[in-house]
């Protein structure tokens, strides 16, 4: 099964990458953009999708600083 894991910085943790993108967009003339956050997309084929949460907790994300979302 094809799965996608979205990993994003946890709320409240400073995200300088998101801030840099947020500052860059108006410079290109794109106004009205806020709350930009940059995360990571991991795509994988997996035989047992029930193992995905464990994979996310142990390796794909660091639960201390990141939230993950599994899409199957």
């Amino acid at each position, binding site marked *: 099964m094809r799965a996608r894991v979205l990993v994003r910085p946890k709320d409240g*943790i400073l995200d*300088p990458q998101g801030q840099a993108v947020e500052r860059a967009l108006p410079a290109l003339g794109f106004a009205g953009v806020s709350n930009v956050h940059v995360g990571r997309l991991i795509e994988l084929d997996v035989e047992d999708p029930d193992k995905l949460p464990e994979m996310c907790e142990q390796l*794909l994300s*660091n639960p*201390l600083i990141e939230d993950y979302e599994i899409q199957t």
Partner: protein
Amino acid sequence: MKFGVVRFPGSCDDVDALLACERVGDATMLWHADRDLNGVDAVVVPGGFSYGDYLRAGAIARFAPVMESVAEFARDGGLVLGICNGFQVLCEAGLLPGALLPNVSLKFVCRQVGLTVVEPDTAFTSACEAGERLSIPVKHMSGRYFTPEPESVRVVLRYASGENPNGSQDDIAAVRNEAGNVFGLMPHPEHAVDLLTGSDSGLRIFESMRAHVAGHALV
């Protein structure tokens, strides 16, 4: 006193760490794929880019066979020092609290920084005095220390006022575990062991470890 320095694929400060250890005792290299710690008295997890730092710094190195032995060694009270990437590995492995995020500047920083000794009575800082200022270089991209529970973290060193190079929470530069036998820091004490290269403050860390293993604290 024998130090063991772990070498992962992508470690790059392993040789400097070995040389720094050899200034105060014997030292040997430990290979990431081995489980045998060769009877060392203390383990150093050095800086670099273990396993390429793919995914997140330290995330993959924590699964190396040698890390199982290091974790067991730490559980039995053995001294473990994590420097820079080694600190990231120890945090990912859960041997130290917290995590290291990309620098606020998003830039690689490489410079000498001043550090204040917060806790001078640990196995890693007994050769220092309270409030003493150390001068040790940093060189990293992801050194911003973060913990969701700042009140419970044991801070050993802080960046001196105005010298925080990465946006670390509360200027935290080094922490230890509750038992006091695992210690991690972003600055590189192994690069500061000779006045010829600017400072020998880093030697204090290695001297403290030797003193601890020898069973007495330096005065």
